[in-house]
């Protein structure tokens, strides 16, 4: 009983300590920042904190940071206060009869739940801010350069129209990336699942050494092989304008080594299901496609998503393989050329934001479509537990 009582308050105290540290750090930064300002501008900053977030109002980027830090600090402070109250309630709660202790627990639970939710909301706000920022900037039409406010003065689709207009290479890059991501997603998923099934279900000579070998091989960064890979691709004529098939080859080539997660999942599916299916007349392939894969939906979805995302966001190797040839670039590399010099940054900043939004669309759709298959607990009732 003693441990049950002391444990929650211990955790609460820990969270409070963490929050206080989190609050103190920006506070110190803020004080240092405020000390550097003269008193008039400091007063102005304080008076217009809330006003400035909601209204388009040019402030210099330094002040913008101070405002955001203040909001963050206040929120964390609020959480810390709530948690302190919870901790005090926990500590003050003495021995009582069953009924009232039950009530006390319920109150404490409600308070800590609220505190945790507030914390999560804050984290998600911090997490979402850049995305909201980019979306809003992409609709800004009054200027094309970086500004110190979030909400546009004039809204419009000019940026979107310009990236898809004639003469823009963006559709080409987009198509390149899409082809690469789709091909990689399909091929890599097939290879990874076959590999995982093989390693999970078959026992063959050198199985363990092979797994160890791949584990060690996986410890080397893939970028180490970049130069030699480029040579091979260029000998095959798969660089620059023809970089797309070459890049697909590179992305898919090592996919067999990503078997860990799905093999671990397959290992949890009882082997007697395979055996029952084989006795029922299924071939190994039918066992995989009719029994194992329907039971492994979450892991198949995970494999597809990761296989799609890697080429979608790749920059380093894609830049290297395309070698400044606009026809062989993917979106990340291509859009990067928009911001190559300060003057281009001045001209293309909002266009870049619009491109970013367009790039995010397929991934968002993919997540939304696949997420609903992501249900767990499908193996219930297979075998006697």
């Amino acid at each position, binding site marked *: 009983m003693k441990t049950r009582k002391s444990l929650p308050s211990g955790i609460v105290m820990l969270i409070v300590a963490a929050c206080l540290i989190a609050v103190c750090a920006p506070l110190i930064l803020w004080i240092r920042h405020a000390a550097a300002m003269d008193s008039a501008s400091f007063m102005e900053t304080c008076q217009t904190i809330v006003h400035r977030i909601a209204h388009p109002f040019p402030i210099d980027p330094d002040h913008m940071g101070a405002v955001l830090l203040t909001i963050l600090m206040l929120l964390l402070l609020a959480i810390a206060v709530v948690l302190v109250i919870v901790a005090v309630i926990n500590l003050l709660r003495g021995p009582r009869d069953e009924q009232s202790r039950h009530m006390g627990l319920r109150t404490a639970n409600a308070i800590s739940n609220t505190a945790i939710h507030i914390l999560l909301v804050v984290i998600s706000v911090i997490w979402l801010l850049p995305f909201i920022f980019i979306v809003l900037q992409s609709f800004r039409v009054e200027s094309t350069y970086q500004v110190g406010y979030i909400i546009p003065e004039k809204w419009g689709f000019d940026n979107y129209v310009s990236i898809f207009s004639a003469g823009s290479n963006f559709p080409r890059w987009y198509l390149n990336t899409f082809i690469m991501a789709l091909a990689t997603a399909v091929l890599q998923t097939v290879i990874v699942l076959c590999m995982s099934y093989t390693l999970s279900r078959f*026992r063959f000579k050198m199985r363990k050494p092979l797994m160890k070998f791949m584990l060690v091989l996986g410890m080397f960064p893939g970028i180490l092989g970049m130069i030699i890979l480029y040579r091979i691709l260029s000998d095959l004529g798969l660089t620059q304008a023809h970089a797309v098939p070459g890049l697909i080859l590179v992305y898919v080539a090592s996919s067999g080594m990503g078997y860990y997660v799905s093999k671990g999942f397959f290992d949890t599916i*009882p082997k*007697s*299901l395979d*055996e*029952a*299916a*084989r*006795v*029922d*007349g*299924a*071939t190994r392939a*039918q066992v995989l496609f*009719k*029994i194992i894969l*329907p*039971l492994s939906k979450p892991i198949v979805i995970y494999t597809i998503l990761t296989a799609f995302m890697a080429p979608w966001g790749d920059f380093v190797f894609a830049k290297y393989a395309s070698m400044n040839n606009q026809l062989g670039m993917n979106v990340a590399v291509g859009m990067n050329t928009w911001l190559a010099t300060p003057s281009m940054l001045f001209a293309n900043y909002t266009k870049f934001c619009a491109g970013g939004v367009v790039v995010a669309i397929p991934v968002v759709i993919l997540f939304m479509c696949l997420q609903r298959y992501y249900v767990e607990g*499908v*193996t*219930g*009732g*297979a*075998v*006697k537990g």
Partner: protein
Amino acid sequence: MASVKLTNVKKIYDNKVVAVHDFNLDIKDKEFVVFVGPSGCGKSTTLRMVAGLEEISEGTVEIDGEVVNDLQPKDRNIAMVFQNYALYPHMTVYDNIAFSLRLQKLPEDVIYNKVTNAAEILGITDYLMRKPRALSGGQRQRVAIGRAMVRDSKVFLMDEPLSNLDAKLRNQMRAEIILLRQKLNTTFIYVTHDQTEAMTLGDRIVIMKDGYIMQVGTPTEVFEMPENLFVAEFIGAPKMNIMHTELSCENGKYYVHPFGARLPVEGDKGAKLNELRVPGKQIILGVRPEHIQLAKEAGPNTIPVKLEVNEMMGSELHLHVYTEDGTRLIVRVPTIDLDPEQRNSLVQGAALNITFGGKVMHFFDKETEHNILLP
């Protein structure tokens, strides 16, 4: 419907562990054979070799005269029920049962007829649209049996199908398997560790230990004429009482001397001993608990014992007794044979006298543990 023949079948695992030694067995068409033995005796391994789920290290397995060593399970035309049911959790009961038929690409109406027919026999018609997770253990087991039933296979294999069920359900399902067997009329191989199941279900029982066959025979044979001490102890519940004693021969009549008593060997057994001219020697004597009686009073052919535990089983009492030298014996007394006064006197520490007849003794060699009457 087919015969199964195992010739010199051996299973050696990669780590050089020999699971099955030289297994020879001829299973006739439509026979119900039970493999029974303690865990780790190789019975499941043997069954899985017949199914094709384990590779056969040496020897051959024939189904209907065809060597199937290198055939995949799907090509052996067998059906199997697993201990843990192994139902496909993402399919409904109907789809589970229809799975093998769909793989055979049968038309849907044929599948429908077969599945509903099997469901009716097993009494699971109401659950056909449920997922396995929504079924109880007994229902799941029925589905597993149904899945095997619809295949019309040559051999029906069952790997401890009842061991996950509770005692009551197990008895019920055992009776249903007997009925099912009559309906299917095919060759069965059934693996169990439960000697009751083996005795009640099997036409023939194969008793195994450490990868060796100890005895093959009908339930009556293995019960009445166990080939060795292991079979004698394994078959029958409670297990056979074992006494180290002397067998002596006087003028062609044989006697045993357990714990100072002198009991004559009578009937067939005495005649058999005579015929084999067995010399007087130290032996292991086995007597089943139900063949020991309580004697009214001490005499030259009774053994004095003390009562340790009295288990009331309802229709009978299991008396756990120990002799002067500490040997523990079990005596099984029908409740109806005891008058109330006698029953009340059976308390811990009570002194009793036991005896047994000369027709029910089993004699085993002290070294080989082989039945002396079966040379």
